[in-house]
């Protein structure tokens, strides 16, 4: 079969559901040999689910899946790899304690006489490191490399198993500008060698630079394809959100009131040498942008007392509060909807009721005894006001969709009537309907005078929702942008440490 007679990889009408949510409602995608296909869409659009299916991590419920014109179905990651499909994970999967050669050949070590054939392994490993432009001794311990180089090692590892299709999920989310440029060079080089890449990214600028074609997902469905000249910012955003941006983020001008939160020279345990100062006023929505690993989540966790500050002062409504655990933060009127909803936001095996009431139990109890009436009422209010879609209040949180889970988290905090609501990646992994509702809620709460501080990796979200935004880079605040200064370019410059351009 000659090149181009049938696409290298083709999926048709793929469906996949999880308890409580239909993640893929019949999506299709084609990938030619030697092509860089960008797959874009907002959080929860189904990109990651499709990638996991392609890489054999989980099976599809229904749909056709062909590699080089041949029907396949993958039962495991090994099945996918034997067909030349490899997933480069967002979280890197190298063993930090092993050297590069051992990592590249982990599980496929060349053997001679029952023992690992070290010299062959090293030689081969060197070859693949060269292929991704890494000039490092193969004895280097993987854990000592910066994240960008580890990622290249991952790619070398995939190539060493004869991968013909590389799936890269947000590869640049924690890379510096320079590392990103190196990665792009490698991707373009691989394309010339006939390797296909599926590139998932939120960074539209990267997509424009790299992609031959763009497939857009929205809410578990195909929203459209773009190629060549059509690949531009406006077209992509329109397909992603399904309408003009201004309609999606229904924002009004706010009149900020008194200062609610004042963070003065606070350093987090993760970045003890980088003191941070920010403030948030009543009725104001403040965004924090930056790359993954820039210290945004750590900052919120420190303000909330999960990882207490190592220096500096935090004032809430002008009063210095010593926050050394979440309880003191909550008592001071703070709330945090954490990034990791399943680990930190909820107690998944417990019910909607038990989750909604968890922070309020103490307040509503008398002498330590539960107040059933208050708990039921609080849950009912949360379910109704947040429009949580649940069969009943006793439903286990695990079985609800990401959007509804996030609504439980928000509901439980609103029951505490916080002065400042902090949201870390508030719409990660949730569908577009729930997303809009959360934006509306943020808008409404700000209108009522609540101070809102949110972290987001989604450019559109920061641009659309913020009255003001801070940008973080390597643990520091690299800049502050008012609403009229907000642009993707300004944020990316600050986020990647390009201070002179800003």
């Amino acid at each position, binding site marked *: 079969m000659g090149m181009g007679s049938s696409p290298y990889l083709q999926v048709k009408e793929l469906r996949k559901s999880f308890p409580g949510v239909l993640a893929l409602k019949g999506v299709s995608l084609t990938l030619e040999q030697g092509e860089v296909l960008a797959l874009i869409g907002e959080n929860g659009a189904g990109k990651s689910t499709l990638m996991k299916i392609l890489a054999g991590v989980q099976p599809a419920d229904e749909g056709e899946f062909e590699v080089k014109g041949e029907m396949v179905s993958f039962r495991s990651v090994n099945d996918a790899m034997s067909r030349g499909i490899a997933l480069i994970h967002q979280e890197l999967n190298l063993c930090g304690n092993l050297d590069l050669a051992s990592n590249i050949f982990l599980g496929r070590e060349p053997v001679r006489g029952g023992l690992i054939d070290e010299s062959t392994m090293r030689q081969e490993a060197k070859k693949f490191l060269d292929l991704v432009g890494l000039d490092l001794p193969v004895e280097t311990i993987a854990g000592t490399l910066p994240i960008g180089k580890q990622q290249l090692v991952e790619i070398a590892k995939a190539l060493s198993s004869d991968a013909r299709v590389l799936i890269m999920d947000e590869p640049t989310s924690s890379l510096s500008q320079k590392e990103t440029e190196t990665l792009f060079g490698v991707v373009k080089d691989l394309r010339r060698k006939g390797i296909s890449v599926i590139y998932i990214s939120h960074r539209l600028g990267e997509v424009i630079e790299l992609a031959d074609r763009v497939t857009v997902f929205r809410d578990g469905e195909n929203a459209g394809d773009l190629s060549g000249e059509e690949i531009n910012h406006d077209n992509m955003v329109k397909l992603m959100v399904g309408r003009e941006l201004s309609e999606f983020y229904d924002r009004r001008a706010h009149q900020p009131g008194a200062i609610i939160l004042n963070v003065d020279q606070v350093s987090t345990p993760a970045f003890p040498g980088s003191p941070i100062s920010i403030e948030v006023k009543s009725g104001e929505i403040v965004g924090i942008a930056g790359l993954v690993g820039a210290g945004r989540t750590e900052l919120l966790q420190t303000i909330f007392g999960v990882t207490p500050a190592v220096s500096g002062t935090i004032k809430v409504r002008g009063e210095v509060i010593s926050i050394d655990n979440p309880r003191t933060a909550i008592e001071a009127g703070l709330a945090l909807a954490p990034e990791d909803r399943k680990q930190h936001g909820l107690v998944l095996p417990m019910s909607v009721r*038990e989750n909604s009431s968890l922070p309020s*139990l103490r307040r509503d109890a008398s002498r330590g005894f539960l107040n059933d009436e208050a708990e039921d009422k609080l849950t009912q209010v949360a379910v109704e006001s947040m429009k949580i879609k649940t069969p009943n209040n006793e439903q286990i949180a695990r079985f609800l969709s990401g959007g509804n889970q996030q609504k439980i988290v928000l509901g439980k905090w609103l029951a505490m009537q916080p002065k400042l609501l902090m949201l870390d990646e508030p719409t990660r992994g949730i569908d577009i309907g729930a997303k809009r509702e959360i934006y509306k809620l943020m808008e409404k709460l700000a209108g009522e005078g609540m101070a809102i501080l949110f972290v987001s990796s989604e450019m559109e979200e920061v641009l659309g929702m913020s009255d003001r935004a801070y940008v973080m880079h390597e643990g520091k605040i690299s800049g502050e942008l008012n609403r009229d200064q907000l642009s993707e370019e300004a944020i990316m410059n600050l986020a990647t440490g390009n201070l002179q351009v800003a």
Partner: protein
Amino acid sequence: MKKNILGIFLLLVAIFVITAIINPKFLNAYNMQNLIKWSSLYAVMSLGVAFVIITGGIDLSIGSVVGLVAVVLSICLKLEGMDPWSAIGLTLVLSLAIGFLHGILITKAKVQPFVVTLCGLLVYRSMGRWFTDNQSIGPIPLEDDAGYANIEQIQGLDFLFSGKIALGSFNLPTPAVFLLVLSLAAAIFLKRTIWGRYLFALGNNEEGTRYSGIDTDRMKILAYVLCSFFAGIAGILFAFELDSVQPAQTGEFYELYAIAAAVLGGCSLRGGEGTVLGVVIAAAVIRLIYNSINMVGISTHLEFGILGLVILLGVIGDEMLKKTVARKQATLKP
């Protein structure tokens, strides 16, 4: 009754009925009283460890705490001639202190519960043997025993802790009354107070619970304190029940029975699950199995084997039941 408790309850009834049919002597009053007494003693320990298992922890030191408390109580009464009520108070404080120490080591020094309580198992056992020079000793005087001040009060305690209350022709062993009171208190604590809710929450997801403003360290310490406290009460009950305490043997392996009962009774070692009723019934099942092996005439060498298989099958059944329930819940539509 929840389905998993219903399952273990049916198991209890089934073994009971089968044994009674094979050997009618099983039903006589003396055997029943003994069965109730031993079930109650085991259940008190099992309830204690249930608090810890609900938080996702483990306590391997229970048997040694039982042994140490029984030894210390006997020493206080016999050698020190201490006021009996003060001696009881002292041993309870000792058990509380042990639990507190476990809790601090686990939450503040971040040592794994398995390690902390395994070391406890070794240390408390050895302390009891050292205190007594490994000689047996009892809380009440046997014939021609010297020591012991205030014999009358000691006899009063003996009735309280290992006496019988006549209910018509049936004599109810007092440990059953202790169990009744303690299990009611435990059930109210777990189901009706915020602290009980916190224990379940942190057992399911400690970080998530902490993010909701709950001092999870303090709650874990509380669980270990309760566990050792219940073991301490069991130690007092055992001391008066046995009359003669063997420092090297009394309470040996009891932690394993307690953990087995908690697990068979529906607690998951992953944490976050468990009911008082289930644990009490499971403790009774374990004692019942022992008794019926004797009654039915199965070789006593098979005791452990049968017990092990029953627990294994019970837990597998429980897991399958949970999966079915979960599947049903997952498909509920809003």
